[in-house]
């Protein structure tokens, strides 16, 4: 492993992210913050939603922000750079085994997703207060869940970014990310699906369910949630599966 090259590639990504800081922030936070404001503030203060919804909503919004950020940060550049601009070719020729370039992308995407997730908490808290009740009983569990969610979003971005063509970006959002979010227990706990027993089972294939429920279980455990150990196992398995699939697709794209 050539650390100098790895660090130089990270420095390049950090440099580009710094340059695009303002659009990146808007793209990451504008939508979740508007959602928080409408559902957590407007709907609650007008009496259409109970006050407790504020606290229930926060982990889901955090999961959405992290997944969007991670997928966007890894998948979008890969789609463009492999197909249209071929910008990635120079980095594929860097003196390092090519899979490490994919790992560097995942590493940087994970960092971005972590920042996105952790910034949502104070931002949403500011928008929603008073009335948000966070109960961080086990910081370690919270840290593990957050890290696994961030990693899942970046690995998912790698797998998606190396599997779909530029013409299918719209489909990626409408057929993959949007259903994932709506059936990902982001705006409601998994137990709320009890009236739809088949759907409740089917959504368990959606990794975002474990992300939302895990964050719910560690941030606002006063609400019903899936057991945290089960969430940790499921997220670890999803991370490993997406990373393996992503690396395989990456190698197939990089070498013809």
């Amino acid at each position, binding site marked *: 492993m*050539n650390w*100098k*090259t790895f660090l*130089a*590639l990270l*420095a*390049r990504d950090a*440099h*580009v992210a710094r*340059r*695009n800081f303002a659009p990146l922030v808007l793209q990451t936070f504008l939508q979740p913050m508007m959602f928080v404001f409408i559902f957590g503030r407007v709907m609650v203060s007008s009496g259409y939603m109970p006050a407790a919804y504020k606290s229930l909503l926060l982990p889901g919004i955090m999961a959405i922000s992290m997944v969007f950020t991670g997928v966007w940060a890894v998948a979008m550049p890969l*789609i463009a750079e*492999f*197909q*249209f*601009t*071929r*910008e*990635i*070719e*120079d*980095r*594929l*020729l*860097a*003196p*390092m*085994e*090519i899979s490490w370039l994919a790992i560097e992308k995942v590493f940087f995407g994970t960092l971005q997703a972590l920042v996105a997730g952790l910034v949502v908490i104070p931002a949403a808290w500011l928008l929603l207060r008073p009335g948000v009740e966070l109960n961080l009983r086990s910081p370690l569990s919270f840290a593990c869940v957050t890290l696994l969610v961030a990693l899942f979003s970046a690995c998912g971005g790698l797998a998606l970014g*190396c*599997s*779909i*063509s*530029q*013409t*299918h970006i719209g*489909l990626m959002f409408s057929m993959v990310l949007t259903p994932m979010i709506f059936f990902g227990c982001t705006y409601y706990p998994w137990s709320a699906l009890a009236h739809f027993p088949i759907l409740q089972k089917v959504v368990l294939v959606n990794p975002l369910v474990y992300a939302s429920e895990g964050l719910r279980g560690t941030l606002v455990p006063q609400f019903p949630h899936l057991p945290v150990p089960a969430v940790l196992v499921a997220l670890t398995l999803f991370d490993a599966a997406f990373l393996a699939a992503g690396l395989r*697709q990456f190698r*197939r*794209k*990089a*070498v*013809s």
Partner: protein
Amino acid sequence: MLAGIRTRDLRKIYTSPPPLASGGGFGFGSGRGKGKKQPKPQIVALDGISLDILPGEIFGLLGPNGAGKSTTLGILTTRVRPTGGQAWIGELDVWREQVAVKRLIGVVAQRPNLDFALTAREILLFHGAYFGVDSHQRAERADVLLDRFKLRDRGDQMVRGFSGGMMQRLSIARAMMHDPQVLFLDEPSAGLDPQTRLLLWEIIREYNHSGKTILLTTHNMEEADALCQRLAIIDHGRNIALGTPGELKASVPGGYLLRLRFGSHSPELLQRLQTLTGAREVRANPDSKNDNSIDVYADRGGPLVSEIANLASSANVELCDVHISEPSLENLFLHHTGRSLRD
């Protein structure tokens, strides 16, 4: 360390469109899902290429589009997996020792692939950093290269707005940034204006004088002739001729080529043309749609035309068109393949 390039019986068969050429990606419907019912199309890109390129040589791969030049470069630069055969840069097996090989090579792709998120100078600096060049040396080299490629005043601009020629110059500067022993250039002067092309040739020669090996592909005869010390002519994935430009040109019978088109076909005329003084080889043009076209390889060009016209009128056949080519690599390519390089 001086490094040459060797290949032995390189073969490449694509079972899907080569990504380097297609520009498309993996769609939802493509790939293994359909694999069982439809046999995968097989495209033979290389059919046993063996080359020995000496350290410190400027070597050219000449051939028409689709001949296999870019695939050869792709294999030598670790981007294409060979179906068969082996390739070495210096003593390193390209496929087995990829990381070590990547340290020795600099690559200029056929299409500019610059990092659009960076300025010209940053592109050079980051490229140097990928190869572990220390920061002081990086800054120094970037300045020298920006100067040499006449890009200094644009160094701090994003490359998105650069012209094609500027992007190409920057691509070459980037490939030289880590001072590679072997430089690969895929059609380096395609789309460049004559002035920039001359600058580029000068820089390539200069780089070669410092002991570096250079392998370039081209379908430009003038470039091959002016720049390359030796050439391989490639067609349909095979090496069809090898030598210095002079040797190759001398291998064409006579050197001159007269492409004749007559009003009608006459076997008798074909025989009589062979008796012309100076005619070395006379044959029906295999590339022509009808058999009224005849190629005459001869040691003279213009002086033969009046004799040919006389022969035609005595055979009662109308001479419709005459095209004379002076000794060139184009003639060589035509002689070997029956096709023009631009086809």
